[in-house]
């Protein structure tokens, strides 16, 4: 089943064309990578998928809903079905980690405080954080922990779809590897579909099932890792041949 269908997207900033007729699809249960040189519009595409940014033409369908002419009610429903991890975590700085994770649960559910506390503890454990970390503020923890907490917050409502914007950027290689392991574990534990924007070769080789390489406003390649090197494209050749 196709969870995300992107068709003929066109995005223009001022007089700069970012995407011109870009199409791709993501299947259920996949870890799908968005790759490309910097400035090619990977993050822009991700932002368009999660309705943070509008596109100029084309259509995006997520979990069976077309988002270009969605009404506010459906949009709210859709937002509860996905989680987003931002590049720097984007944890709410005025709340502790526990409060960050609990926020969506408190707003959208009628769960008791005790239940929420339990769920928060579980989510923290799931991403490999200590129970004592729950009472820390985002400014008091390291970048790696911030990303883990960000994932825990994204998973709070048990979404089936997870968007990750450069999850391993800014992490040391060991933490980055741990994070990749975590991504794989979460996928097998929770059956998530993930869309990842990444530059990290280790993530690309070890986590991705399929990928799209965006170059020069279009998709230069979409498919599995095995065949990517056969594509004649400057970026792909430089990126994958160096070892």
């Amino acid at each position: 089943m196709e969870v995300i269908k992107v068709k003929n997207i066109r995005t223009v900033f001022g007089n700069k064309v970012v995407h011109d007729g870009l199409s791709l699809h993501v299947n259920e249960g996949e870890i799908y990578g968005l790759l490309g040189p910097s400035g090619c519009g990977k993050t822009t595409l991700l932002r368009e998928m999660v309705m943070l940014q509008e596109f100029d033409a084309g259509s995006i369908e997520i979990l069976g809903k077309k988002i270009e002419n969605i009404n506010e009610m459906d949009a709210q429903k859709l937002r509860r079905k996905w989680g987003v991890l931002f590049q720097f975590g984007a944890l709410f700085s005025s709340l502790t980690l526990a409060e960050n994770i609990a926020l969506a649960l408190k707003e959208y559910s009628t769960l008791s405080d005790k239940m929420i506390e339990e769920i928060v503890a579980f989510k923290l454990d799931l991403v490999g954080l200590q129970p004592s970390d729950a009472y820390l503020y985002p400014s008091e923890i390291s970048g790696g922990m911030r990303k883990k907490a960000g994932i825990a917050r994204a998973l709070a409502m048990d979404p089936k779809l997870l968007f990750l914007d450069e999850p391993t950027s800014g992490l040391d290689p060991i933490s980055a590897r741990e994070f990749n392991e975590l991504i794989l574990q979460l996928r097998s534990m929770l059956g998530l579909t993930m869309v990842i924007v990444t530059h990290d070769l280790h993530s690309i080789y070890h986590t991705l099932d399929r990928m799209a390489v965006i170059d020069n406003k279009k998709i230069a390649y979409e498919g599995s890792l095995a065949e990517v090197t056969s594509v004649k494209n400057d970026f792909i050749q430089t990126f994958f041949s160096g070892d």
Partner: protein
Amino acid sequence: MNIKPLHIDIQKDGISLDFSGELTLYNLTQAQNYLKNHTLDTSQKITINLENAHYLDTAFALFLTDVQQKYNADLCCLNKIFLHTLKLVNEHKKRLDKKDDIHKKSIFEYVGKAFYENYISFISFIGFLGKIFTSFLLYFKNIKNIRIKEIVFEMNESAVRAFGIVALTSFLIGLVTAYQAAYQLRLYGGNIFIVDMMGISVFRELAPLITAIVIAGRSGSAYTAQIGAMKITQEIDAMRTMGFDPYTFLVLPRIIALIIMLPILIFVSDMMAMLGAIIVADLSLDLTPSLFIDRLNEVVAIKHFYVGLVKGPFFAFLIASIGIYRGLMVKDDTQSIGFNTTKSVVESLFAVIVCDAIFSIAFTNLGI
């Protein structure tokens, strides 16, 4: 000792530009000047000779390629590194030359651009007001939507904590104005008129304006900085993707909190400014506080007091909405927070004063 980088050798069969030593940006100007002071006979064959040079940097290489083009000169160079540097410089120069058509902007273009940018930002502010309006409608459609906790928190942060500074500023302004007026009034023996003067000016104009200025500088700028920082750390994006409308969570609580609190602050300001006036009247005009208050009751109608309070919610709306709007305009760099915070204070003060002028005209024409 500095060795001359360039020596011009004129021979029968041509001119040779002999470069020697280290050719770097430190002696580039020397070589350029030397070449400028010598007119070369362009009918003759010119050769650039790099045989005696032992180092070449890219700045000097740029100069050499210029010379080569200008005089259509031959290059005599066997050093592979030099040739590589020259080739590199040449390639990039070709690319630069293509983009060379950056024209100088005329004053009309600057003015037009500035006007257009201001026009666009005004339009987007109108859009922002529209968004606030629709959010208000959605907000009050369901009583559960109203976020009492946030509103109360903001009331404390942006107004209750400002009581001290508003009180102190108003007290001092009341004191100073009364003191200056007392000196003039004593000349005419019109001591008692201090009450009329201070009563009307403080209640109608001074107190609302002082409060608005203090709050714009203190809380309006805080709104911009807070929301701007949240924008940079992508907290606002995170809220959106989780389905929390930033307008319900961030914008409306702040606006509502300030609308409720500004009249109360104006009241505090009224009282403190009058206290200042009473003290001056007692000390330098021999007008006892009880006499002052009696006279106040007689000559200053209550409407003046209400006129001042009524301005509060309007000023509050302007200050809060401009502060928040500027916060949302912050781009992804830290410079932009400073820029927008400055803009927020300047624009909200301007808006408050324009609004006050409109009120002044309206109330006078209505006979209030």
